[in-house]
């Protein structure tokens, strides 16, 4: 089965020991939860999940050339 490619962007301390931005291949049908766990992140650590600039659920499946952005729970104002 052909793989899909997803751009993953990490922010704040998620970058420590990982990366800012990377394009990774995944099996078709991969969802946000699987990618998060695959990065060694706990689901409770993740505050904001965005796919293509819109908030997404952990169950959302990724498509070819999607961008997944992961933020810890942070804020400002």
């Amino acid at each position: 089965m052909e793989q899909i490619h997803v751009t993953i962007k990490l922010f704040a301390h998620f970058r420590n020991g990982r990366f800012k931005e990377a394009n990774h291949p995944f099996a078709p049908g991969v969802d946000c939860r699987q990618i998060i766990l695959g990065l060694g992140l706990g689901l409770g650590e993740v505050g904001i999940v965005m796919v293509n600039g819109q908030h997404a659920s952990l169950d959302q499946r990724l498509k070819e050339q999607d961008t997944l952005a992961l933020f810890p729970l942070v804020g400002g104002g």
Partner: protein
Amino acid sequence: MDKILRVNLNDLTTRVEEVPSEWAGLGGRALTSTIVAKEVPPTCHALGPNNKLVFAPGLLSGTASSNSGRLSAGAKSPLTGGIKESNVGGTAAQMFARLRIHALIIEGMPKGDGWYSLRINKEGVSIQEETGLLGLGNFAVIDALQSLLGKKTGVIVIGPVGEMRLSSANISVKDPSGKIRSHGRGGLGAVMGSKRIKFISIDDEGAPGIQIADPEKFKAASRVFTKALMDHPVSGQGLPTYGTNVLVNILHEAGGLPTRNFTYGQFDGHEQICGETMHDTIVARGGKPRHGCHAGCVIQCSQVYNDKDGQYLTSGFEYETIWGLGANCLIKELDDIAQADSVMDDLGIDSIETAVAFGVAMEAGLLPWGDGKEVVRILRDEIGKGTALGRVIGSGAGAVGRTYGVTRVPVVKNQAIPAYDPRSVKGIGITYCTSPMGADHTAGYTIATNILNVGGQVDPLKKDGQIELSRNLQIATAAIDSTGMCIFIAFPALDIPECLPALIDMINARFGASLTGDDVVNLGKTILKTERAFNLAAGLTAADDRLPEFFKSDPVAPHQAVWDFTNEEIDAFWDF
């Protein structure tokens, strides 16, 4: 016994008054807005003798409670023409509270051209003629007063922009490091300048201090409250590490980072100005990523930012300033923005209003997009010296737009819209429209729920739920602004069930009161309605509760979002 200090500049007299019973249970914004609504004729000229400038510490200021050191300032705003409250950290609120000063009311206007200063101590307040420190920047005034009166002196001061009575002038308050924090928005520094008060010094030697009605109950509630602040990931970890500037990348990703004077929702230079880059830069240059704006702050979202030689450049370097000169003016050099921040602090000018004014000025062709060096030059040589161009820019985004015929002018009630695009983060657009303060993100910070997933989730791109979200947050914020608490306690308060009851318990233990959650909500509603009634009496109408036309006609990339609320939908905000 708590007291009201009243300064009458018409005849240069001062009085110490008893606190009227109807003001006794009020603090902070509740008190400044109540006093302004009662004593200031709404149609008066904001820079005339009938306006009054009121300072009040919060209900919990001066206690051992975490994050309770905010001071409110209120008056009719020369920028919006409506009522204004702006609150600030620094050392003054706690000194006022220890001196048992419930509020300071400055009224009237001196005859002649002379300038004055006020001195506050345990005896009350006195008026002195002032000549030596006129024209100086805020940092020089604070240094001079510390030499003269000692390191511990409290200082409330206006810079040259306040002396010129420009509508972006702020009022600055000395912080625990001898630097400043500011009552930023709405031109309150111009009101202080119109009364020809250059500074207020505070000496709390021999102050009677705070009396807590039930110290044991207070201590217990305070412990629960502080734990909630430390346990929440935003107030306990996120803000201390990255400061508010962590928002650059979040808003960029969400398409809500206003770019090139609100033309786009994303900025290609975001990585150069973001909180992550700023954190690494601060650490590499030996600055401080954590710094509190007042004693007792456990969140410490501020920082000390050094230049490339490791020398102090600025502190209190906030997301809104960095966004405003960064994405909004296309400046990619964080050092230039930090330099501008420091000059704005010294001149005493609101960094949000001024950054947005520069965006409009760039749109008008007055200076090139992205030219940070020219921004710093204009700040120093035009605004700082009061040239005609400087006075136009120093009068705010609306003034620049009117003077140069620009139509893309992001203001509500003539106050500049801050760092969140209301087309792609719709809840904050409702706050901008309806807040009696004019466009002000802090008045009802829907970003928490629209973007940060704090206090639930409301889709930022849809209209559903935004009115109710903004209304609930504005009511809660009005109440929190009355306690002396930093607004960032709202993050744990929205998510941790013990937090808000502990805050109410502290107020009850402090005053021997028995307020309930409903009482606090009703306080928030009463404040908002009092402020709105002032605005309507001042001549503002529902037509002032609107976003500029371009937000409806010009879609913002990447979501191609437009502002699509009807007037009737917006006006329903006030159905409470």
